[in-house]
């Protein structure tokens, strides 16, 4: 799992690349989120376009990111989730937690007028 950060407008986009499976990835993620919060970044978009699949441990990583961002008064949304990932979010009811967008443009509207 590779994570690249981009700032776009008032948001930070995390471009993930690889598989989201927990293990070493969990630690990498935790550090990224810690640094985001330290730097006062509150609006986070997780770009799943290059994530071929996710398991439940990977879901846990996303949830932990979500929790820490929300605790700081921000929000975390996802974009470009594949059908595979969408259906996993659906059966785990995590679609109720993560707002999911099909384009970067629409994902960024999540943080309008905040």
């Amino acid at each position: 799992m590779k994570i690249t950060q981009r700032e776009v407008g008032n948001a930070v986009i995390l471009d993930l690349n690889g598989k989201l499976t927990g293990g070493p990835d969990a630690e990498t993620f935790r550090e990224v989120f810690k640094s985001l919060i330290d730097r006062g970044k509150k609006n986070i978009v997780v770009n799943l376009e290059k994530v071929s699949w996710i398991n439940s441990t990977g879901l846990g990583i996303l949830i932990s990111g979500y929790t820490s961002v929300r605790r700081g008064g921000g929000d975390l949304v996802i974009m470009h989730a594949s059908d595979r990932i969408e259906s996993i979010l659906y059966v785990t009811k995590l679609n109720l937690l993560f707002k999911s967008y099909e384009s970067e443009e629409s994902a960024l509207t999540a943080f309008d007028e905040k």
Partner: protein
Amino acid sequence: MKSEESESPQDDVSVATMKDRRQQMELTFPSDFKYLGAVDAAIQDLAREFAFSQSSINDLSAALIEACSNAIEHGNKFSKRKRVRVVLGFNGGSLSACVFDQGAGFDYNKLLGRSLPPEPISERGRGLMIMQAFTDELNFKYVAKKGLCVELVKVDKDSTTKAEGGEAG
């Protein structure tokens, strides 16, 4: 030297759907998440080869990845000396996957009976939910001194009308 290291988890596959090895592919790998991608890639290709619909393939592979993740994490506790074994079997319009670990098993009846999903904010506890949601049959069997066997069965509703062993899509 026949040590734990050189032994594969459960060489006798005795679950119902697993009798005929002529349509079976087996994968054995160390207790490390980095092998999961290869398992996923193999089942995706194979199921397409057997004319499974993409949605059934995705369902089964999501369930299989959960079962393997649990085998690696809870069963074998990430011990690199322990291995996970996956047996993929095709039977007309259904695909079954058996996942064997070398761990101590767990009280699956209690967990399967659990009616509520974990609270949305919990970071764990969604594996069994995914396995149940994405399969038509989910069986657990613990073999003493060997480990746990989780059997996942997926019936492909779209493929039953197709010819046996159809072409790659």
